[in-house]
């Protein structure tokens, strides 16, 4: 047990970066998901196409490829960002593309009668979206967003490959200096797992709060 304790300080330092990157990338991904998801449903063809291109580009190419592309190729075009910014940006763009589909599907899942009621009440489309459609869709979005948050947390481990000192990187460094593979990687896996569980519980709590009173009538 004491043998494990001396590994912890380094790993905790790595975990800090992992959490920090997740904390920055998640809200940014949410914004990307909402903007592109709504753009897909906008009545303007150009916006729809831009959203489709964004989503297909980031869902269709692998995250690790995107990461290396932004890290190695973008500086050639004069876009020089530090590794952490690059990492956060790519993670947010990638997760946002997956989230975009969630937004689209959730808004599509709101019953048609709700839209019709809005029209009957003479609401403008923007107001109907803001006051009636979106609040209902948002509750549906939360569980898949929770899954995406876990995927994002796991994906941050790839940032270790572009020189960012996160939990995975800390594990690799310790492995190179001590060679205690089983303990180190076992511990790293446990820490990721614990973090993911905390995030899952947080999302559950949020789902409960946001869904309070809404789904009562659907409960069997």
């Amino acid at each position: 047990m004491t043998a494990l304790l001396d590994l912890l300080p380094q790993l905790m330092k790595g975990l800090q970066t992992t959490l920090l990157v997740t904390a920055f990338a998640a809200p940014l991904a949410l914004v990307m998901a909402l903007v592109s998801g709504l753009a897909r449903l906008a009545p303007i063809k150009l916006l729809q196409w831009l959203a489709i291109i964004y989503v297909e580009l980031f869902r269709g190419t692998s995250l690790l490829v995107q990461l290396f592309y932004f890290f190695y190729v973008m500086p050639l075009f004069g876009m020089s960002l530090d590794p952490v910014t690059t990492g956060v940006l790519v993670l947010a763009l990638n997760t946002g593309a997956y989230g975009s589909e969630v937004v689209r599907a959730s808004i599509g899942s709101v019953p048609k009668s709700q839209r019709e009621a809005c029209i009957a009440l003479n609401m403008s489309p923007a107001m109907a979206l803001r006051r009636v459609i979106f609040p209902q869709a948002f509750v549906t979005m939360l569980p898949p967003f929770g899954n995406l948050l876990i995927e994002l947390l796991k994906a941050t481990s790839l940032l270790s490959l572009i020189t960012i000192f996160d939990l995975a990187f800390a594990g690799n460094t310790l492995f190179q200096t001590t060679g205690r593979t089983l303990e180190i990687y076992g511990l790293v896996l446990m820490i990721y797992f614990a973090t993911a569980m905390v995030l899952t519980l947080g999302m559950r709590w949020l789902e409960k709060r946001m869904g309070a009173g809404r789904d009562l009538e659907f409960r069997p």
Partner: protein
Amino acid sequence: MNFDLTYLLQIAPLLLKGAVVTVQATVLGTLLAAVLGLLMAILTRSRLRIVRYATTAVVLFVRNTPLLIQLFFLFYILPQFGIALPTYLTGVIALGIHYAAYMSEVYRAGITAVPRGQWEAAHALNMPRALVWRRIILPQALPPIIPPLGNYAIAMFKDTPVLATIGILEMLGVALAEANRSYRYYEPLTMVGILFLIFSLFSAVAVRLLEKRYAAR
């Protein structure tokens, strides 16, 4: 920054060789994941409580930890226990185990969708449990879940670049090796991106066809 087409053509054969490795790893990984996932799904319905709990815990753990670390874990730790596998096989096993956990959830959904009456009727006919699974439950549970399984195969395909980290020369591995040699990242990485995009778009169409075919049931 000019895109050097002649250089690209020069390295194209290497990249395509990498693409073959990528596709191979995906196919083998998917087969492994499909079998392991089904096994996990059946074990989570075992009559023994320990087996049920243990399987659920394993699935939860695998789903909530990064593939990269699982890969390192297998790559560095299996040899310590005297299991020296070729690197390529280790990569396929990591992909297979990781996605088996995801697929087991899909299988579970398919299995729970089979009406209870089917189980009861099979019991009434005094069928042994293995036979119930093989003849009654699985033939009804599997067809509707083929499209979601296909989606996970596509997701796995996009995760194969991770294998480059343990030195497997799949598409990204080849591109990075080439870039490190020539200090030119632009052409190889762009090409890898385009190849991934092409594969993904085609496979998305394939899954849509599967959906059409199996949705009718």
